[in-house]
């Protein structure tokens, strides 16, 4: 399916939703309105959302601790996300999961994970089931650069290739695992290279260019869906926000570096593309931003007005049945 104007507008709307949601979360955390912690993906909106938009009904994704972008990408309701972050019973996980564990099985998000690389097993297993049942679906396993240094990553890539599973390992290389730059955590420049040793096809894409992300991921999705086995995509991007709400000083990187990536803001770049190619006029973009903001404010109100889960239900989900 080619990238229609309608689809680009939808993509833009989702990217704006993720950005405004995360800016709102940042503010609410700094004001102490929310419990726990959060990991923002400001700057990574194109990488996550355009990739999710290439998927079809029945496809699955697994996400990381930095998962809001992916959740919006796969079509989760912002109310259910925000209410979960407020720990309310109307949250997508009833207040039992929280920021790092957003799951919406119906929408295809089969698990965000607080364990770095934790989604690898879930994704490979979901792909195994698709293959076993001969279904026409695939799984996209999102992870950061840090996860590719975990042992499970290497076991997962090997297994996926020997069993020719319908899975895309989507590595969002944002340059840092918390404070550790990739230059210090691995002796290669491109994580993509790691796929080759497992006999897996791989590509690199510009994660801050939504159109490229969509088109290149779409080709990969087609290749995998046709039964050619797994692929690895390295999406080069950058996290403008700190690692988590506790990452305030950011001593490990310079303002110059951050500024150079601010200039490559994926939302600005998509706006420029849309205006230049007559996908939308600037009034329309403004209107989208206003509408999204209204929707988010509604979602905050909804979350604040929702009930806490009952202490009586604390045991309810330990075991199935």
């Amino acid at each position: 399916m080619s990238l229609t104007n309608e689809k680009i507008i939808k993509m833009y709307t989702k990217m704006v939703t993720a950005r405004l949601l995360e800016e709102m979360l940042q503010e609410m955390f700094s004001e102490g309105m929310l419990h726990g912690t959060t990991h923002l993906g400001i700057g990574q909106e194109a990488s996550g959302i355009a990739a999710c938009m290439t998927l079809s009904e029945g496809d699955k994704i697994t996400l990381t601790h930095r998962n809001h972008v992916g959740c919006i990408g796969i079509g989760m309701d912002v109310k259910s996300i925000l209410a979960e972050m407020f720990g309310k019973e109307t949250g997508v996980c009833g207040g039992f999961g929280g920021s790092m564990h957003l799951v919406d099985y119906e929408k295809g998000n089969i698990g965000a994970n607080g364990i770095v690389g934790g989604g690898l097993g879930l994704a490979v297993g979901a792909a195994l089931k698709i293959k076993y049942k001969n279904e026409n679906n695939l799984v996209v396993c999102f992870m950061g650069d840090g996860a590719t240094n975990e042992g499970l990553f290497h076991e997962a890539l090997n297994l996926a290739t020997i069993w020719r599973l319908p899975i895309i390992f989507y590595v969002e290389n944002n340059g840092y695992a918390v404070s550790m730059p990739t230059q210090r955590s691995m002796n290669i420049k491109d994580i993509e290279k790691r796929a080759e040793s497992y006999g897996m096809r791989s590509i690199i894409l510009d994660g801050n260019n939504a159109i490229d992300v969509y088109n290149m991921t779409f080709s990969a999705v087609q290749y995998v869906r046709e039964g050619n086995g797994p692929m690895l995509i390295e999406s080069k991007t950058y996290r403008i926000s700190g690692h988590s709400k506790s990452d305030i000083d950011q001593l490990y990187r310079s303002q110059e570096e951050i500024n150079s990536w601010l200039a490559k803001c994926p939302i600005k770049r998509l706006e420029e593309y849309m205006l230049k190619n007559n996908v939308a006029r600037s009034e329309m973009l403004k209107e989208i931003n206003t509408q999204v903001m209204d929707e988010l404010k509604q979602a905050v109100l909804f979350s604040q007005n929702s009930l806490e889960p009952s202490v009586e239900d604390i045991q309810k989900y330990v075991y199935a049945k």
Partner: protein
Amino acid sequence: MKEITYKEALREAISEEMIRDENVILMGQDIGLYGGNFQVTKDLVLKFGEQRVIDAPLSEAIIAGSATGAAISGLRPVIESMFSDFVTLMMDNIVNQAAKIHYMSAGQISVPMVVRLPVGCGTGAGAQHSQSLEAWMCHVPGLKVVFPSNPHEAKGLLKAAIRDDNPVIFCEHKLLYSTAGSVPEEEYIIPIGQANVTKKGASMTIITYGYSVQKCLIASMQLKAKGIDAEIIDLRTLYPLDEKTILDSVKKTGRVLIVHEAAKTGGLGAEIAALIAEKAYAYLKAPILRVAGKDIPIPFNKTLEQACVPQIGDIKKAAERLMRR
């Protein structure tokens, strides 16, 4: 009734469940033509094919991880860790993923999977192939832990474990694999969470599980000659514990001996002793005694290996001491 071995009983359970439900698949190392390290899955690949009896590379972590992923997607994987010791390589996926997903997702997802673990010492395989780690597993909310002591239990419990919608850790003692016992011809299930009073008695309650059950039975026969009539409880399920069966017996006999091969510190015996102290203290006529594995890595030398886990003589001595108090 028919006479089959423990490993044949396990194989029958797997085979019957695979016929019953096409979502049941097996994954593990050398479980195909090789038949599994202890021959539990022998010939199953011929019967069900490589799509369902899946030989995996030496990658325990992804075996457990992908089984979890397959389970949340609707399959019912039964995975084999070649030795229970290698479950350490699976632990993140079992503890952080399989055990918690149902809870964290508020019940959106369940994880119907079985992790089969060949447990225990006595084979001269040394410290890294002989451990009994079941107490670790009981400490993780979200897991169920079972440990059959004979072929009848092995078959009935494994069928229950495969049908359970939760991750079940299935402990199998290596020295039991070739032991035989009676098993009903017709289909049966032993529900998870039910202990069995293997032998009735009035003088004391011996609480045990797994391979130690056989040792306790022999010890109790010898004790009988000395006028000590021990009741033996075979726990069968280690989590959730069958509190009622345990407490009813303790209230009747007033004396408790707990026997297991796993290391004593932090072992299941400590949990059971605490349970009895909390809920049946007033019925006790003597302090609770434990006969358990020593807190040491399992040594290779045969004499040392036998000395580090409870033997029949140790159980008898402890029982006699318990009666004198």
